[in-house]
């Protein structure tokens, strides 16, 4: 309830209401499509944020869960004719299981920091190679999903459909992050990030907490996979397990602010906007990427806490003044 009363709560409410009406007022479908992409990327960022931002376990294989989820629901749909509405839950389960598997192996043997980053990167490559070589994934040919628009198939002719779906996913992801910030589990994850030994001494079962965290990350990644598959109607191993997407989800989170509720959303919004604007106004091929890169370096260099750090430090100053 306190959320509804606080200033952040009011802003979130306004944000949600405005977001709901965006497709009504924005006629240009191109912008709706971009917004869907921003929301999708924010959702993936948030999934990474649970394990990377809150629990401090930097994964370079976030795409594992995305790809596994995409394959899970797509195989169910194309091979067994099961609706993606059920498929998305299968994808969530598959993502969580992949998380359990990778988490168990890496945390059991105490892999931390760069070693954990490397093993997750290696796993994403392993998953890609496996998806490429077994039959039920369609191998290198990939899986084509029949174009059959309708809410039953989570396919829409109007981009607004995907926009709303992504919006719901982002709202759920924000709710998860908000719950983390208020719960014991979240406090334990942050304690593990800050100092694992000290957390253990205070009775925190670090291994179990990290497993739960990677399973939540995996479940969210799995859901994103179904969204992607139903939107683009095609997946193959290089798409499902692309390193680029692993990097994107950690990039939007780092730029926005790790371990914060709104960091991934802000990061995704800013990075995609910068990218699109640069592409729009700069005609010389490749130059837009340079501009994008320079802005990225500037943000990371000058804002170690991400863009959200801008708001936070301001808040602290005003807080200090009111105290005095």
């Amino acid at each position, binding site marked *: 309830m306190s959320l509804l009363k606080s200033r952040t709560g009011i802003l979130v409410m306004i944000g949600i209401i405005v977001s709901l009406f965006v497709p009504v007022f924005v006629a240009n479908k191109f912008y709706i499509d971009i917004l869907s992409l921003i929301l999708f990327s924010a959702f993936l960022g948030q999934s990474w944020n649970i394990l990377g931002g809150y629990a401090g376990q930097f994964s370079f294989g976030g795409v594992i869960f995305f790809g596994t989820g995409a394959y899970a629901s797509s195989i169910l749909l194309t091979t067994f004719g099961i609706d993606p509405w059920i498929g998305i839950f299968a994808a969530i389960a598959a993502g969580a299981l992949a998380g359990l598997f990778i988490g168990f192996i890496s945390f059991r043997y105490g892999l931390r920091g760069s070693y954990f980053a490397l093993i997750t990167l290696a796993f994403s490559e392993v998953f890609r190679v496996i998806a490429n070589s077994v039959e039920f994934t369609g191998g290198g040919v990939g899986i084509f999903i029949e174009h059959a628009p309708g809410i039953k198939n989570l396919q829409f002719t109007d981009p607004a459909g995907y926009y709303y779906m992504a919006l719901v996913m982002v709202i759920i992801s924000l709710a998860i992050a908000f719950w983390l910030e208020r719960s014991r589990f979240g406090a334990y994850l942050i304690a593990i990030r*800050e100092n694992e030994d*000290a957390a253990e*001494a205070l*009775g925190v079962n670090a291994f179990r907490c990290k497993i739960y965290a990677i399973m939540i990350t995996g479940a969210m990644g799995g859901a994103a996979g179904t969204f992607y598959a139903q939107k683009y109607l095609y997946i193959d191993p290089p798409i499902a397990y692309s390193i680029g997407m692993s990097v994107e989800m950690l990039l939007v989170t780092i730029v926005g602010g790790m371990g914060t509720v709104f960091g991934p959303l802000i990061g995704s919004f800013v990075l995609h906007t910068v990218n699109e604007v640069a592409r729009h106004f700069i005609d010389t091929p490749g130059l837009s990427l340079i501009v994008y890169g320079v802005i990225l370096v500037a943000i990371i260099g000058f804002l170690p806490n991400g863009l959200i750090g801008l708001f936070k430090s301001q808040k602290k100053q005003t807080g200090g003044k009111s105290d005095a």
Partner: protein
Amino acid sequence: MLEVKGLCKSFGGVAAVNTVDLSVDEGQIVSLIGPNGAGKTTTFAMVAGFVAPDAGSVTFEKQNITGFKPHRICDRGVVRTFQVTQPFATLSTLENIMVGAYHRTANRQAAEERARAVAEQVGMKALLDQAAEGLTVAGRKRLELARALATGPKLLLLDEVMAGLNPTEIDEIVTVIKGIRDSGVTIFLIEHVMKAVMNLSDFAYVLNDGVLIAAGTPTKIASDSNVIEAYLGHGAAERMTGEVAAGA
């Protein structure tokens, strides 16, 4: 309450702790002292589950807890603090203590209330909103104590909570530790500040080169020739008694 039997640990051929036997009775303050490198912290680490012993056993309330993970030992009611303070740096003092308090309750509000009460008990009330990384040495030592206390332990293992403090701060923390004991928590502490050891402990163990060389009440320990030699070098005890005799 705590029974340690034949505890051994070697690091690359060097026996850090060699067949140590000791026990801590409920309601007491027991000290573990000794020169640097004597194996005190290693002993604590083995009791708290951070280091697996090569041999020997640790028994708490008649149950064998040897080789348990730290969080399981904490569940039993044994919590350690760290000599080199290990704060959750970016969190506030309150949030730091709450991590400990959550051990007793999953409810945020209850954890916060408990954390505030503990902060009051250790004299950190004014620092609750400060980030842990901005605390002074004395503040960090208190924070270690507060976090451990917030878990609701039966036995607290305090590893040099007075090192680096000035005399006033030491007096303050001695009062705090006595208060904790009076609230029913048994205390086992490692300390170099002899004045505090003398003042606080009911019983003391002396460790040197991984071996227990003396055990007894603080006054008895202070006059033990083995202990004097360990601290001041070979022959020191003889010279001291000689000087005393000459003086008399």
